[in-house]
């Protein structure tokens, strides 16, 4: 027995002590796996260990103890996983039947598959990467040492998104570059507020020094009166000029900030990997970019300015009140804490309400964005009414979520008004009483009333703003949600610049998972520069996934893809993709002219180059027949082109960037055979001299391929030339047979 062997290091520490007792001295640990369910599918942590001579298993017993079992490895044994159910199964069997099985959840799926993989590779006698000599690799992005089995770098892995403290405050980071103008705006606000406080303040001397002396003693202070009236007029003019400057400056700044925000959100969106778009509805994204930024702009340009000047006004009025008569001021302000308390209570409810309303709005946009592109299907199945109902349902949800808000709001607003009226009432009462006692003059009371009514008007408008604030911060949260998303295809920290690649592609043990479902189980393949590879296999075998990985739309879950001997994750994404041309099954044309569409990948291309590319793609002549030639508008809202014509434009587009690596994803499967012949001819020009990976269901399309790779169930089943594969009588021969039967009928099959 050997308890302190370092070969146990690979196991989780909690198992070291217990597992060590089970192993013999010379035994080598190959792999391990922790099933997390028992056979009745309750949670229970177990352990399965594979060594070079046995398979060991520890199961928890009901009495809390654990029992160990072991099976010496024999030739007839097989180990396999079955992941079709919601709980997966690892099964050990030999010729006589099942020996044992373990259940586990999707969380352990990768570990289980790794165990089976190790088992298989050990059985093949390759002893590739046994646990005690775990291969260490280097993270292609940051250069840190990583576990080659895991493939992902801990150091680079995106941490959990930090919750936004207050989304609105984060807007400040967008305003930093405009700090000077913002400061100017607030200084102007301050000055304007001060100017607008002059008139009520002047009421006291006007009454006490001009009107009252005339009323009581007929003293003529008319020179003073002119002086004060001049002051009033001057203050009004000053307030007008300052207001004008303030509004213009702040409106400019806020419009700028929200434009920056929109630009940044859209730019960030473009950087995110395909995985993000797979999980998002287009309508919701559109609503975030257009609606939410619009709301923020409104808030910044209208509400925030008012809000700032209101706060200033309230503070300054309160100061003026206290300075004039502290006692009266305290009486006047006594409903104030009550209002603050109410605001605080309603705030959370409003914020939730606005978030919900925003989500409902997004859902409604989604319904439209969903139905319009699919309108042909809708009409073909006569489902217009159902679509209308679907829209109505989400429209009603918008109404209800708005209505719920209004309920809170409609009660809240008038209550605030009532409280402020109470404040005024208190001022009247205590003012009259103090004049009675002779403590203050009539002028003081009048000035006080003028000031306090301003105070409460501002207060009310500020509180009403509360709703705008909540609405804006809900919008800000929805925008920052996008901005906080990290691309799953990160840029390397220490990039290697690819320049122009030679085009050698090497797949090393490539695995890929969509969520928890592994779709590629360790692919190895080397494609030489200039070679054309045809990928064949049933739908869902992982062909498109493989292509997505080579294009780096996604990153591998484990293993690596090397191009010219360098991990693709080490290349800056954009520079790498410049070497790749892709022709998809459904060519996408943007709204614009044909020339612009062909030059999409190289906007600087000259007209001669565009024409040359179109010629090579056999698109030139049909383009000349269009009324505006290369200047014809295509894409949504543009000229209608047939599938074959669109495809040839997209081939010209790929040709123009002169890529080293060319990907053809079912480029000809959506057109008739005649058009396919045209496209084939176009493709011949494209494929020549480039590393090409082509997917096709019609095997005839792949005549020119140097090698065919048959992918089945996420693994490479066969590789070879057409006739070699036919002779091998494997999966390819079966596929070929099936297609011949389709084309020529069953009788002449096998020719």
């Amino acid at each position, binding site marked *: 027995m050997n308890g302190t062997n370092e070969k146990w290091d690979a196991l989780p520490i909690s198992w070291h002590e217990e597992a060590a007792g089970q192993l013999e001295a010379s035994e080598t640990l190959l792999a391990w796996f922790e099933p997390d369910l028992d056979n009745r599918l309750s949670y229970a942590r177990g352990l399965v260990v594979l060594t070079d001579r046995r398979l060991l298993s520890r199961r928890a017993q009901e009495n809390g103890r654990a029992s160990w079992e072991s099976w010496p490895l024999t030739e007839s044994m097989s180990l396999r996983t079955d992941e079709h159910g919601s709980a997966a199964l690892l099964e050990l069997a030999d010729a006589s039947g099942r020996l044992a099985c373990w259940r586990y959840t999707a969380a352990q799926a990768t570990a289980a598959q790794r165990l089976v993989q190790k088992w298989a590779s050990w059985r093949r006698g390759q002893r590739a990467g046994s646990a005690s000599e775990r291969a260490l690799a280097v993270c292609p992005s940051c250069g840190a040492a990583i576990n080659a089995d895991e493939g992902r770098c801990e150091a680079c892995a995106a941490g959990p998104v930090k919750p936004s403290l207050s989304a609105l405050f984060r807007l400040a980071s967008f305003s930093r570059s405009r700090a000077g103008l913002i400061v100017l705006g607030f200084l102007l606000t301050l000055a304007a507020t001060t100017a607008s406080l002059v008139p009520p303040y002047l009421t006291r001397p006007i009454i006490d020094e001009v009107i009252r002396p005339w009323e009581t003693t007929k003293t003529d202070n008319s020179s003073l009166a002119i002086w004060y009236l001049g002051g009033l007029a001057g203050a009004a003019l000053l307030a007008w000029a300052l207001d004008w400057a303030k509004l213009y400056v702040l409106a400019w700044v806020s419009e700028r900030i929200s434009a920056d925000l929109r630009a940044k959100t859209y730019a960030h969106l473009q950087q995110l990997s395909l995985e993000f778009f797979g999980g998002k509805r287009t309508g919701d994204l559109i609503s975030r970019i257009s609606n939410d930024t619009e709301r923020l702009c409104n808030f910044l340009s209208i509400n925030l300015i008012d809000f700032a000047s209101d706060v200033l006004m309230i503070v300054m009025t309160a100061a003026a009140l206290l300075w004039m008569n502290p006692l009266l001021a305290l009486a006047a302000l006594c409903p104030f804490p009550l209002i603050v308390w109410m605001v605080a209570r309603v705030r959370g409810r409003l914020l939730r309400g606005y978030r919900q309303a925003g989500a409902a709005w997004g859902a409604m946009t989604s319904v439209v964005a969903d139905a319009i592109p699919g309108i042909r299907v809708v009409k073909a199945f006569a489902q217009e009414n159902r679509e209308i109902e679907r829209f109505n349902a989400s429209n009603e949800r918008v109404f209800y979520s708005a209505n719920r808000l209004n309920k809170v709001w409609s009660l809240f607003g008038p209550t605030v008004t009532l409280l402020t009226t109470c404040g005024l009432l208190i001022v009247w009462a205590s003012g009259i009483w103090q004049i009675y006692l002779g403590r203050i003059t009539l002028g003081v009371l009048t000035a006080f009333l003028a000031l306090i009514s301003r105070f409460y008007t501002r207060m009310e408008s500020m509180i009403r703003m509360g709703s705008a604030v909540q609405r804006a911060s809900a919008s800000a949260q929805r925008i920052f949600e996008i901005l906080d998303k990290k691309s799953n295809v990160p840029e390397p920290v220490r990039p290697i610049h690819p320049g122009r690649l030679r085009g050698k592609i090497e797949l090393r043990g490539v695995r890929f998972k969509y969520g928890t479902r592994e779709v590629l189980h360790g692919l190895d393949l080397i494609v030489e520069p200039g070679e054309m590879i045809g990928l064949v296999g049933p739908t869902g075998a992982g062909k498109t996934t493989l292509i997505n990985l080579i294009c780096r739309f996604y990153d591998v879950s484990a293993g690596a893809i090397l191009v010219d001997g360098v991990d693709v994750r080490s290349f800056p994404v954009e520079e790498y993709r410049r070497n790749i041309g892709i022709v998809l099954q459904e060519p996408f044309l943007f709204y614009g*002219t044909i*020339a612009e569409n062909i030059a999409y990948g190289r906007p600087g291309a000259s*007209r*001669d*180059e565009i*024409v*040359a*590319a179109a*010629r*090579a793609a056999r698109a*030139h*002549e*049909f*383009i*000349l*027949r269009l*009324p*505006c*030639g*290369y*200047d014809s*508008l295509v894409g949504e*809202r543009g000229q209608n082109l047939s599938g074959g014509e669109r495809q040839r434009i997209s081939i010209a587009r790929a*040709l*123009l960037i*002169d890529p080293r690596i060319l990907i053809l994803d079912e480029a000809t499967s959506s057109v008739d055979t005649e058009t396919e012949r045209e496209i084939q001819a176009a493709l011949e*020009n*494209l494929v*020549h*001299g480039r590393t090409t990976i082509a997917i096709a269901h019609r095997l005839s399309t792949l005549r020119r391929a140097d090698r065919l790779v048959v992918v089945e169930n996420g693994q490479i089943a066969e590789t070879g030339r057409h006739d070699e594969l036919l002779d091998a009588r494997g999966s390819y021969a079966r596929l070929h047979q099936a297609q011949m039967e389709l084309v020529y009928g069953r009788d002449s099959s096998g020719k």
Partner: protein
Amino acid sequence: MENNGAANGQARPRPFGLRHDAWGRLVLIDAEGRQHTGVEVVRAFPISDPRHGIAICDAKGRELVWLADLDALPASLVQQIKDELTQREFMPIIHRIVKVSAPIEPSEWEVETDRGRTSFVLNSEDDVHKLDEQRALITDAHGIRYLISDIEQLDANSRRLLERYL
């Protein structure tokens, strides 16, 4: 480009001639002396670069001659080609927008063009397409295209009417 079609390889077009036959059809006589009846002269970039890239195609749309640059041709031939193009291409240039019937589509436009005064129906605001800073292209309900060659040159009223669409 490394894989161009054959036609592009010609630095200067091989000699050819054009004439009209008795039925008014255009006939191309190519370098080998073969005659192609009913050919058409088309511009590849009628809007963005009308002076370069002119093709002569046969009745089935196959390209017979590609003229990257007219300057390389004898003057008489250039004149023939230009005449042919003016015969074939109809794209009035709008000088003035007199009236737009309503602010919503479909709307009727009354315009003055280089080919005289006319009116047309605009189906959707998407049919007004800004080509670059100066030029705009309007496609009417029948697919007829009208060009505005310089927006700045229009009078104030026309610009105001057009502003909403750009």
